[in-house]
């Protein structure tokens, strides 16, 4: 646990305020860490995945003795120190070669993590094409029914979306759609795995640059060019949050929910139309034009009074 910092000047106070929990949260930042032993493939994968996440990413190039499935203290420390909630830890051991662990934190604690082994890695450098600009929002495409049916794949999808979605925006520039992250999962029966510690099935992670061509219509024709990186993943270990914690993490603050606007509509013409409820009008008290002929004489009042009193009451009196 870090010692709580007391700001001593206005600058550090502002910096601390940026880290406080907010209704509209900051972009989740990510740290890419190397474990105590790594391989060339893992190192390149970490730096490439970091480049995709930039500018909200930090690449740690030194080795750290981190084993997220055994001990989470150093991750908690990094999380608090750097105000980050996403981690990718890369490692390479005999037991689990070319290993990447995607970790997501909530409130300084690990929410869920999933470990994948890399096969057939192709780094960003190997594709001799133009890359997308830094900080562009990617498109996502998830292929395969596993992302709908398998809990593990569903969570992995959610983690990837969380990693690369970037800032939450209301509008997007149509010319800023530059690349797409395509993830394809298949529960293959044909292939034989020599990785005994992995779940059956493969996940293809590929990134393409989008070229929008003329089509003679309003929507353009899409052509793709592989930009890299490209990996084939095999899911190994995973640890997901229990329902209570997850529920707490996905709670939407009340203030964030839009308030329902009543009685105000916009009609087809684009006019703002309001509706006002006045209640029922009491027509008996309506003052019409006064005329002598309509004037009630005193006898009328007397009759009405007697009629109104119920008989039983009259007897009692």
């Amino acid at each position: 646990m870090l010692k709580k910092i007391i700001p001593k000047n206005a600058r550090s106070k502002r910096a601390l305020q940026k880290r406080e929990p907010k209704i509209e949260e900051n972009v989740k930042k990510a740290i890419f860490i190397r474990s105590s032993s790594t391989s060339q493939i893992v190192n390149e994968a970490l730096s490439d995945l970091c480049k995709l996440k930039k500018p909200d990413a930090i690449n740690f190039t030194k080795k750290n003795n981190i084993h997220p499935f055994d001990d989470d203290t150093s991750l908690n420390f990094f999380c608090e120190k750097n105000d980050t909630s996403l981690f990718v830890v890369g490692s390479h051991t005999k037991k689990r070669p070319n290993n990447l662990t995607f970790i997501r934190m909530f409130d300084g604690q690990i929410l869920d993590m999933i470990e994948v082994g890399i096969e057939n890695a192709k780094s960003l450098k190997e594709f001799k094409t133009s890359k997308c600009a830094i900080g562009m929002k990617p498109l996502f495409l998830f292929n395969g029914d596993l992302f709908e049916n398998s809990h593990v794949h569903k969570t992995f999808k959610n983690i990837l979306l969380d990693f690369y979605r970037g800032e939450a925006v209301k509008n997007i520039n149509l010319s800023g759609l530059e690349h797409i992250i395509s993830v394809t999962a298949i529960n293959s029966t044909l292939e034989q795995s020599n990785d005994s510690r992995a779940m059956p099935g493969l996940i293809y992670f590929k990134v393409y640059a989008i070229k929008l061509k003329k089509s003679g219509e309003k929507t353009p024709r899409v052509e793709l060019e592989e930009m890299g990186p490209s990996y084939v993943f095999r899911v190994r270990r995973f640890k997901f949050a229990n329902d209570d914690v997850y529920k707490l993490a996905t709670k939407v603050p009340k203030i964030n929910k839009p308030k329902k606007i009543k009685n105000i509509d916009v009609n087809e013409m684009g006019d703002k139309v309001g509706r006002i409820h006045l209640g029922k009008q009491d027509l008996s008290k309506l003052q019409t034009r006064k005329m002598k002929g309509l004037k009630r004489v005193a006898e009328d009042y007397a009759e009405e009074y007697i009629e109104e009193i119920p008989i039983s009451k009259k007897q009692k009196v």
Partner: protein
Amino acid sequence: MDDTTQKSKYKPVTVEKPIPLQYDLAILAGFDTNALDESRLKNDADTYLEEYTRDGTQLIINQIFKLPVTSSDLGVMAELPDLVTVLPREKPVRWEKFAKIKGVQHRKKSKMIYDEATGEWVPRWGYKGTNDDGANDWLIPVPDNADPFEDQFTKKREVKKERITKNEARHRRNVEEAEIALNQSKGVNDVNTRSLRRTELQKQIIISKTATASMGKFDKHLEGEPKLKGVKRKFEPIIGDVKKEKESSLNILNKVVGKKGDIVNVRKAIAKRDQK
């Protein structure tokens, strides 16, 4: 005829899929649940995936271009819909803090509330309170998906107990944070309220020790109690300065009876005399 030749100049923008894609356009995502061609994926993964992704991307782009647009000096901006996918937050919502920003004020609740079912006034909480969620009902229906051998009464009681402990922890945290804020306003920059309370308590122990003539020499020692330094029993000499002794005696007397001003309240005395 003319129309078809015009179109053939360009490649089509339409894509046929047996199952239509699901979209979450707030994060520009598309979810394709159609079956994949396993044999092609095995033999020629790269080209197959590129073709397959191109079709999917085309569909997402088609959806994005259907969105309402506004043009600004930066270009054509599409308005994105609300997020569909549930993504967890980074930090928990602190209601106490947001309430302050929002200007939500606490209203005092009355202890008793009217129970319409029985037509009686009952306490809102506590003994015979109404917030027991029906744990005091004589019958609780077992929910369909619940374990039939589970005791619903104990379950409800435990849920309530848990709620209470959670709330207590939250309360404690709020109190501590308020204490820190108060100390900071006084200029004490110690975040740890426990250590603050400890030093405060130790000061008070020292003061209480000086209450006895032996300066706490024969008192029971507490565990981990610090050794007192500089607190010593002091004896005045039996024969000494008479002037000083007189002064100190008078001082004590003054403290007891000699409040500033008159000893006798004349007005009150006259009133008493007149009564007689």
